[in-house]
């Protein structure tokens, strides 16, 4: 499953009302750390199709979402389950860190 591109317009429907959990990657195209993480985010989507969805939000184009979720550093990953935001993961340094973070939240 590919990574969904989510914006202010469809965030409510595609993330908050999603039946499956959604990992959202808050990022921007100019950000080196975000680029470095993107292959990992894509692999997350591929490897976990069926378990949860993976989406990305460009913070430059969606500043309302950036403010609502207090994104101070990108990339930041947030897992949404039943419309609720979990503990954010800021700029993870390894896939193992992401695995642990998902496991801590029951995935």
């Amino acid at each position, binding site marked *: 499953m590919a990574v969904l591109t989510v914006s202010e317009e469809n965030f409510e429907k595609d993330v908050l009302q999603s039946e499956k959990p959604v990992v959202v990657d808050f990022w921007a195209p100019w*950000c*080196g*750390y975000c*680029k*470095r*993480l*993107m*292959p*990992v985010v894509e*692999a997350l989507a591929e490897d976990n199709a069926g378990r949860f969805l993976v989406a990305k939000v460009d913070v430059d184009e969606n500043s309302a979402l950036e403010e609502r979720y*207090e*994104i*101070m*550093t*990108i990339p*930041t990953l947030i897992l949404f389950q039943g419309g609720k935001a979990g503990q*954010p993961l*800021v*700029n*993870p*340094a*390894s*896939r*193992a*860190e992401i*695995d642990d973070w998902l496991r801590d939240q029951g995935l």
Partner: protein
Amino acid sequence: MSQKTVDVLIIGGGPGGYSAALYCARAGMKTLVVEKLSAGGQMVLAGTLDNYPGFDEGIDGFELGERMKKGAERFGAETVFEEAVSVDLSANPKRVTTNRGEYLARAVVIATGATHRELGLPEERRLVGRGVAYCATCDGARYKGRRVVVVGGGNSAVTDALTLSKICEHVTLVHRRDALSATQVYHAQIEKAGNITFIGASDVIAIEHDRKVTGVVIRSKETGETARIPCDGLFIAIGRRPVTELFAGQVEMDENGYIVAGETTETSVPGVFAVGDVRTKLARQVITAAADGAVAAKSVESYLRTL
């Protein structure tokens, strides 16, 4: 847990690691790269590289990393995206355990590179993303119109301060020495910026915060007096450190933690080689890392013949 045996296992997928992988795979060795996140290492964060020859208009560091990976894969090198958690380098074959499995290798190439240095304050890690940052070009835009503190006095701290001065209301540059060690050309630019205050001979001793950073506490090295600087962001630019914790006590390192290895990339342990920024060397560049990779493959080949 899976177990797999290879001729050469390379820890780290930056330019040193993938150059070693390319040369080893092309020489017919069964080659595995263990990379914790994604290809490219530090150069991914550099944006456009203008000092890697052959790209007359520069090349994006991320793209170069991906292409180095593909270039090695073309000759059969494999990559697993796992994090090495322990190694036994004295064993024969050598053993590398990751968060997902265990690997046996006749030779190991250490290509773990370097990363930003931390201040080491108790709240620092918890506040990353809540006001603590290490990359002004990455995170500066989030501090538009705010007050920030930059720690450090070298070229990266000063260029960070200059970058931030264009975005933020005010920048305070705090350095432990009384004068900046950055190249002279930057000193005038700091003055000209008009909104940068330099405070020398001072250490940052605490980060004040509620949910986010609200200020830092500094202490003068001369008088011992402390002062509070209110700010929304703390940018830490105090240099780099090699990523070598995993090998502590097994391979000889210098006083800064770099793995002692000369031109041949041979370390103090037979069959263990070090390439790129992690090795003791004069110039830490993408091209010198790549060169190390090529040399390491030769050294690995010679070593394997002795087994």
